[in-house]
């Protein structure tokens, strides 16, 4: 009997908490402070590099877009115009700003794009379907290694087996990398997705550590800790020479736009509702005919597949991969970016990734302690805006709307 009471208690509490947030009464001054802090950091008077400068504008633009959306009610026609205009603006930004930049700036921007693909996928898995995953770093790694091993005709020796791997076209290698991750995620997800919350976090964490061990130890296959050179030489897709960093950046950007469009499509399709339903209340969803297991695996494997594709792009972007790059720290970064940006919002992952790729660098001017400040910033963000930047904007918006309605 006590078991059911405690479940009931938790449900009741949860309902209260949600209601409280939705009424906008949950420490909105703090949320405002969070926004102010974000703005302060974005506007910090440092421009160490070209990349930092671009990302400064980018982050400022995102915040401005959110601000506009905040002031104009979405339902109104103005709101819709602002929404589409800002979307077009963001795409144009990513497309136009790389013009005339140095190669290393383009690589940095490319990193932003690649990580954004991972986080857009993770946002579907975690933000919309509610399945926490600390294994995105591992999927990134699997994607990277699979693609590199499949399109170079490398000779390998693993577990007594020796052979020459095929030399697939790059696009096919990317597709295989994504599919491999999807299959693997279904294999581990099938048993693992019976558990939720922290348990799922620990299962995926352990999976990531295991993948790391395999990458590090199967020297015959992966080159082990010495890593693999993955030069872009001779990489031509549809007649475009990807050796040029600029071309490769746009190549990655196409994947980001496609990934974003895919997730956007899914979220507004009936699948999106099913995902949200099983995030909010899996038991109730099942009783209404939602195939919880299939949908969960779908959400998990789409996230993993996007991470795999991103991994394939990442390997050729950095032109060197080694297992340390796919350790749990990488997964923590993706997790952090998605949550800090705002779970379950389309713009959240972009904000989050801007922060992890730029913020530590921006804080360098504080001297030796710069990463301490970064840690403090993360802690503070969680205190002030537990639903992330975009989540806080939404909170502020409903609060403003409630005020407007009350005034009427």
């Amino acid at each position, binding site marked *: 009997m006590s078991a059911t009471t405690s479940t009931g208690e938790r449900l009741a509490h949860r309902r209260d908490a949600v209601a409280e947030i939705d009424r906008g009464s949950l*420490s909105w*001054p*703090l949320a405002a*402070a969070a926004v*102010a*802090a974000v703005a*302060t*950091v974005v506007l*910090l008077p440092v421009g*160490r*590099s*070209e*990349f*930092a400068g671009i990302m400064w504008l980018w982050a400022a633009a995102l915040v401005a877009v959110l601000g506009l959306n905040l002031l104009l009610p979405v339902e109104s026609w103005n709101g819709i115009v602002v929404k589409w205009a800002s979307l077009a603006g963001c795409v144009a930004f990513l497309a136009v700003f790389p013009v005339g930049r*140095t*190669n*290393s*700036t383009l*690589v*940095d921007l490319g*990193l932003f794009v690649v990580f954004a693909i991972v986080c857009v996928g993770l946002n579907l898995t975690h933000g919309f379907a509610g399945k926490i995953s600390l294994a995105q770093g591992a999927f990134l790694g699997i994607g990277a290694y699979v693609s590199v091993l499949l399109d170079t005709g490398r000779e390998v020796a693993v577990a007594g087996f020796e052979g020459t791997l095929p030399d697939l076209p790059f696009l096919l290698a990317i597709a295989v990398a994504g599919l491999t991750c999807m299959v693997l995620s279904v294999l581990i997800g099938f048993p693992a997705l019976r558990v939720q919350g922290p348990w799922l976090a620990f299962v995926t964490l352990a999976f990531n550590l295991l993948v790391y061990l395999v990458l*590090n*130890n199967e*020297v015959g296959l992966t080159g*082990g*800790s*010495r*890593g693999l*050179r993955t030069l872009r030489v001779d990489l031509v897709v549809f007649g475009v020479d990807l050796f040029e960093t600029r071309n490769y950046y746009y190549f990655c950007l196409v994947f980001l736009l496609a990934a974003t469009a895919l997730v956007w499509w899914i979220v507004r399709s009936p699948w999106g509702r099913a995902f949200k339903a099983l995030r909010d209340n899996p038991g109730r969803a099942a009783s209404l005919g939602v195939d919880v297991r299939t949908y969960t695996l779908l959400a998990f494997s789409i996230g993993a597949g996007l991470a795999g594709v991103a991994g394939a792009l990442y390997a050729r972007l*950095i*032109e*060197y991969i*080694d297992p*340390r*790059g796919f350790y749990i720290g990488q997964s923590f970064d993706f997790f952090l970016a998605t949550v800090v940006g705002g779970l379950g919002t389309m713009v959240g992952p972009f904000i989050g990734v801007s922060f992890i790729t730029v913020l*530590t*660098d921006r804080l*360098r*001017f*504080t*001297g*030796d*302690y*710069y*990463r301490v*400040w970064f840690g*403090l910033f993360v802690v*503070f963000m969680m*205190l*002030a805006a537990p639903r992330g930047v975009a989540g806080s904007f939404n909170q502020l918006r409903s609060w403003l709307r409630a005020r407007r309605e009350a005034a009427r």
Partner: protein
Amino acid sequence: MTKRPCWSKLAVVLVAGALVVSACGGDDGDDDEASGGGGGDDTTAECPDGDSVLMAMPYEANQPAGENWRLGIEMAVSEINEAGGILGCEIELDAQDTQTDPDVSRQVVADQVEDDPFVFLGTVLSSNTIVNMVEAQRAEIPMFVGAEAPAITDRDENGDNDFIYRASFGVDTASDKFVSYIADQGVESIDVIYKNDEFGAGGRDAYVAAFDEAGIDVGLDIQVQPDQTDQSAEVTQLAGGDGDAIFVFMTEIETAAFLDEYQSQGLDKPLYGGDVLSAASTIALVQPGAADGTTTHAGLNASAPVFAEWKEAYAEFHPDADPPDHNSIKGYTIVHVVKETVEQIGEFDNSKFSDTLHCATLTVDDEPGLLLDVSYDGNGDIDRESYIVSVVNGVGEIVETVPPLDNLDERGC
């Protein structure tokens, strides 16, 4: 419930305050550096940056190796600046942490390239250097690295990089020197234990190749994992090996754990290994006597008598730091290598670096800060005398001085 808003306000004020203070603090720091840079008084017209020369130092702040590298460089820079700089130009140092993350290190080097430094001093870890050296190469800025992986100076692998220079032996050079010593000790077969990361595995590869070449049989080939403090299983396996000796290639923590376990199990085969095995920083971590009898080849070992005077100066300059190790000496000497080369060129023109430094020998007579005579071959690898060090009563002692290889003509010259 009434308490909550108080808390939130307090937190906001605190963090906002902290951000402001940190911002101010950062600015102050910059100002100090700027005002400190105005000391040069003679021939300043040639300096690349007003009256100073900018040197970029990307380094692994979270690794002991990176930290010691920085301390060594800071000492050299301060001494040189006090003595009037290089050709009258103050050295301005831009130290940036790479977090030991290849991506970040590449980003850091790329950012520093935009400030157009005269040279790069760093990085120290091979996995980082392999990634970030490309940026310096593209910008045609000489880069002096503490990293030891053979691939870094291999012209087939680094795309004919004319801008990369080592501060110490590559592990392939070191292994050639050391293995001939080991063979001279009558060792015919050897068991190997190494740390399973980029450093340990790279060292193991180079040494196993050298053992093969020297006709020494490699028996057991065992790895330990990073941070593994309980090595009883691995040491027990070693105890059952047939080798005449054991070769160890790990970093401090794992080496210390290994030596403790080795002593506990009462094993007494001779131990040979990379620099770390007999380094002071390792001896400081082990049980008394556990490091005794270990023998290493040390390119730059702080216990060598040549460095005695320098060590005192170091202790004076960094009173709070740990005693210097080979990385501190690497860092210290490399600044002087730059100074001597520039003085030979006669102007700050880093395009002339490779012509001047490749296949050149720099001597202590010309530049005492080099501490030892050093030659650079055609690939940026070095040659100089080195030492076989053995630990006696907890102190590293030089048992043999290995002369330079003197084979520059075989190495790209």
